[in-house]
């Protein structure tokens, strides 16, 4: 069959976009009516999607491999945790601080990128990832150290105006996460469709040529790292509200970074929706493999499924889905105008 061709900016394209948004909104509403633990799972997925979107900016679009994003995730989470537990802040009000601190940390981690490149830069991020749990343990007075930091449910009560009670905090966080994810996706989309997005990919593809075209590599790399850290930190902050119990060795080790990287490439790096798809994969794949078999067998199956996906879906799940959709609908660039990345 021949696919329908739609031009960007045309009425049909607008229609498609609106239909897509409507479908997403419908899915969210449907999700909200499910059992509480399912709502929790979906919240977790959205939080992962935000975290992976952050990683996507640095690793997917700009080619700066980071194995230290667990640290941003953790810093975001601990900022919220400490503000809520020690200073009694309302959870939502801690988000800006978490995002800001992570942006600063990201910028600082990006600084060595001015001199160090490629896998050597990955070593810098590795150091950050290894350091984070140790630092949390070291500054016990602030973070609760190895014993962990527990945010109690009543401290996570939804704001009064919502009329929601403490036990309903799950659904509140669900909608907060959905909003945060939406905002993240819009920002990422804007950024990557702008000439800065082109500069990011140019930096990834060929640094020397990018510099010769006037791309300030230093600015791009540090800023992208900052943004990337901020977005992942936002996810961390929401995660703190979701899980309530923060422990340095629980959720913020290198294994978290590995989970994020896995999600990014399973979903599809350098694509807008890849991180969302990847988040579903990292939350639900282990869940289903654990259902298939118990204990270590599920680990073997999970590993095998991961490999199978790489073999069967070279461009990530989102890429395959995109190609499948492409059989029915093709979006062609507007005449005299660029097809965007």
């Amino acid at each position, binding site marked *: 069959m021949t696919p329908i061709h739609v031009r960007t900016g045309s009425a049909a394209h607008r229609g498609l976009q609106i239909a897509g948004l409507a479908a997403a909104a419908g899915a969210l509403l449907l999700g909200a009516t499910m059992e509480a633990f399912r709502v929790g799972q979906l919240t977790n997925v959205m939080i992962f999607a935000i975290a992976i979107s952050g990683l996507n900016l640095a690793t997917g679009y700009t080619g700066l491999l980071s194995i230290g994003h667990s640290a941003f995730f953790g810093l975001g989470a601990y900022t919220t945790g400490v503000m809520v537990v020690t200073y009694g802040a309302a959870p939502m009000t801690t988000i800006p601080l978490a995002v800001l601190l992570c942006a600063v940390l990201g910028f600082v981690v990006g600084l060595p990128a001015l001199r160090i490149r490629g896998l050597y830069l990955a070593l810098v991020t590795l150091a950050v990832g290894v350091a984070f749990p140790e630092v949390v343990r070291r500054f016990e007075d602030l973070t609760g150290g190895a014993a962990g930091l527990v945010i109690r449910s009543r401290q996570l009560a939804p704001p009064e105006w919502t009329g929601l009670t403490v036990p309903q905090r799950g659904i509140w966080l669900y909608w907060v996460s959905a909003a945060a994810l939406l905002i993240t996706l*819009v*920002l990422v*989309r*804007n*950024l990557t*469709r*702008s*000439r*800065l*997005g*082109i*500069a990011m*990919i*140019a930096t*990834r*593809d*060929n640094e*020397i*040529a*990018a*510099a*010769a*075209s*006037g*791309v*300030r*590599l230093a*600015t791009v790399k540090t*800023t992208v790292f900052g*943004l990337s850290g901020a977005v992942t930190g936002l996810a961390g902050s929401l995660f703190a509200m979701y899980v309530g119990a923060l422990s340095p060795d629980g959720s913020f080790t290198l294994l978290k970074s590995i989970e994020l990287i896995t999600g990014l490439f399973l979903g599809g790096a*350098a694509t807008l929706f890849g991180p969302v798809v990847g988040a579903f994969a990292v939350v639900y794949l282990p869940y289903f493999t654990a259902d298939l078999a118990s204990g270590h067998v599920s680990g073997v199956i999970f590993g095998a499924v991961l490999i199978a996906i790489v073999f069967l879906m070279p461009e990530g799940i989102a890429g395959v889905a995109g190609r499948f959709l492409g059989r029915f609908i093709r979006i062609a*660039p507007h005449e*005299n*105008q*660029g*097809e965007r*990345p």
Partner: protein
Amino acid sequence: MQMVRTTGTDRPALTVTDVTLRFGGVAALDGVGFTVAPGEICGLIGPNGAGKTTLFNCVTRIYRPDSGGVSFGDTDLARVRPHDVVRLGIARTFQNLALFPSLTVLQNTVAGAHARHQAGFAAALLGWPGTRSRQRRIEGEAMDILAELDLTDVAHRPAHGLPYGTLKRVELARALAARPRLLLLDEPAGGLTHAEVRDLGDLILRLRRDHDLGALLVEHHMGLVMSISDHVVAMEFGRKIADGTPDEVRAERRVIEAYLGKAS
């Protein structure tokens, strides 16, 4: 953010003075000096390994000369950072293709215009209407350049997988998108048939006329160099061995011995 801009009317000359650069024991450049006058097409020839590409790299600040200097108009390029060279009006192509393979031809060209516009992460993130319309304008300009270079058909194809000769033209398009005063072309005719080389020569002349620019042209295709250059510099072992009109240089004994060979 500091912007180094030249206005549309000033046409600076490129002056290379006594540049030396060594790699370990090899002196890739050894006291080279010459001038490319505004609006001039200057051919740069020499045997393989003479230091031509290295000289390009010194101009675009990928390398820093051990001694000597390069200036563009009044600006000492030693003080300019690599990404600001293009802001001064110097754009280049690469001998061995340095494109962005995952970007489309159009996007590669748009990337070339990067230096001409204010970078603003905040504005880009928020996607303000002004940003978008500017984006469209840049894309429109890039499409014009592609049309000029006969690349419209492949505008939306990723650079990856296009034929070599096409990619060479994409590089040229990217360089032009920067609206340079001076184009540095490193073997643009590589891999082209005779007819294509002739078209390329016409194109370079037309570009000079329409875009009001000069060019420094490294090329082994003597037919091209001699037919379009106003002035030719020949190098060997990092040193200048001849400098003059095409006919003068072609007749120079050392150039024949070192470069052209008896047959030519």
